[in-house]
């Protein structure tokens, strides 16, 4: 019989990978419901398509690699990757977009590096970046909040648009993108970015009708972000994720946005605007906290999160894309080995 010695903590929550992954999936539910309420059925269909592709790809590759397929599927990591990617995609994007993205995430980013636990990069985010770089037009075709749309769509319309490009009632994707005033509606990040680039001040850009108040809350988008915050707090409360990464990411965003605001007030987005629009709240709790591709030491996690927040605001303000969580996460994934190297915790009992 083997007498095994293990280091503390000895009394810990016994969750296997599948349980953890499932809990993250459940935590996404409020956000997905909010997204469906504001943007229609498209998101649900995208998620379903992504999950189907992910399971098929994962089992095919595990079969090729002669691994245990059912165990690989039952750890729910592929399902979670698909869910996160599906949430990020424009609701009515064509079906091949999500299929290509999910295939890339699972096959190239995860399995080619050796499967779960060996991937250097966050699979969902690389899938998203690949799609964003490859198909910029399709990836920027966000549809307006449904109560402000000229022609809202239902479930059948969504299915038909995703698979054929036209809704049941004959509208094309470009027509479904029109707001109630007959103009293609920009996302809040896009509206502010375009406004600032064309010489408006930040408070003038908030006159766009997507913003329902004058301190950076946008109709539809901010409630979705808050719903993901709710899910994130559920994960924190159940100790599925540690506080280090999400809190430091948000801190990075707050510090950087605040500093830029002091430097050039009214030329850059406010702190609340940066927190409440785009993927910051979703990313801080669901993307940055990926245990595989993130830093593994507590100090490292704080640095990792701070840098992601910093890079997100910097790219949003000065870069070529309106949102930047995916780019920031991927860039910092590369830096993880370096961060881990310099933040090794001191061994217990080690004399200084």
């Amino acid at each position, binding site marked *: 019989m083997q007498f095994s010695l293990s280091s503390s903590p000895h009394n810990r929550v016994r969750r296997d990978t599948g349980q953890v992954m499932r809990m993250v999936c459940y935590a996404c539910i409020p956000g997905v419901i909010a997204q469906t309420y504001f943007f229609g059925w498209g998101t649900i269909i995208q998620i379903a398509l992504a999950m189907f592709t992910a399971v098929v790809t994962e089992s095919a590759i595990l079969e090729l690699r002669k691994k245990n397929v059912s165990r690989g599927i039952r750890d729910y990591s592929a399902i979670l990757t698909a869910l996160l990617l599906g949430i990020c995609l424009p609701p009515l994007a*064509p079906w*091949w977009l999500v299929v*290509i993205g999910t295939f890339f995430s699972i096959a*190239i980013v995860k399995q*080619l590096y050796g499967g779960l636990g060996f991937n250097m990069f966050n699979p969902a985010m690389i899938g998203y970046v*690949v799609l964003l*770089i*490859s*198909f*910029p*037009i*399709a990836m920027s075709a966000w549809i307006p909040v449904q109560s402000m749309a000229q022609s809202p769509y239902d479930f059948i319309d969504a299915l038909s648009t995703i698979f054929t490009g036209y809704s049941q009632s004959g509208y094309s994707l470009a027509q479904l993108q029109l707001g109630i005033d007959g103009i293609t509606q920009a996302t809040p990040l896009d509206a502010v970015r375009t406004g600032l680039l064309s010489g408006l001040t930040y408070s003038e850009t908030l006159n766009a009708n997507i913003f329902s108040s004058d301190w950076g809350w946008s109709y539809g988008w901010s409630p979705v972000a808050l719903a993901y915050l709710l899910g994130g707090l559920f994960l924190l409360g159940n100790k599925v994720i540690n506080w280090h990464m999400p809190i430091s990411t948000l801190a990075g965003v707050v510090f950087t946005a605040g500093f830029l605001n002091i430097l050039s007030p009214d030329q850059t987005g406010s702190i609340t605007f940066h927190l409440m629009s785009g993927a910051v709240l979703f990313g801080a709790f669901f993307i940055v906290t990926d245990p595989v591709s993130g830093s593994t030491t507590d100090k490292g996690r704080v640095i990792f999160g701070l840098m992601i927040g910093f890079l997100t605001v910097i790219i949003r303000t000065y870069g070529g894309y309106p949102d930047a969580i995916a780019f920031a996460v991927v860039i910092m994934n590369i830096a993880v080995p370096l961060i881990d190297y310099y933040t090794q915790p001191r061994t217990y009992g080690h004399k200084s």
Partner: protein
Amino acid sequence: MSRVANEFKELTWQGLWQNNPALVQLLGLCPLLAVTTSAVNGFGLGLATLLVLMGSNITVSVVRNFVPNEIRIPIFVMVIASFVTVVQLLMNAFTYELYLALGIFIPLIVTNCAIIGRAEAYASKHPVKESAYDGFIMGVGFAIVLVVLGAMREILGSGYLFSGMDLLLGDWASVMTIQIFEPEQPFLLAILPPGAFLGMGLIIALKNILDPKMAQWFAPKITKNVERARVTTETNTREQS
């Protein structure tokens, strides 16, 4: 006679597969990754490199007994540079549009490590005939990878294959263009630089998969047997078990 034939067989095996300059030695990656946005670009640059490689190998082999060992590298570089100039002027004269498409990467053939590598490693130590053949077969090995990678990126990126072949081969070659499929939107990643790295990685992976089979079928049988004592443990066996 059979020794010479064996030498050529070995060179072919080394150049095309076992020691392929692009896939195994990973030399000349800069033009390899930058130029291969289409099959015709890859083919053009592969051809240019092939000519330079043959010319420099022959010249270096001819003068190998007169070159002082201490200054051989500058001399090799000058030989290579003059051949690159010749090829550049030829392409400027006869395939002008391809010349424009390849741009800076034609003069940059000078810096292609595969060429000076062959001059140093092979041509400076072997007779002319073998050196010429070595340059030829290494160039072919390099060109094949360029064309395969270019074709891969072209198909994924635009749905076409061999478009613009008439730039290189004359007007009749415009019929070679094949449309594999019609993409709704082009897959830009394949055309952009990351696509080159990904494609290259996939081709190398494919080569590693095929390695045992190819060795079984095509590898020349090694005649001389060198006995050597193994002083390190075999690390691979443990990983496989």
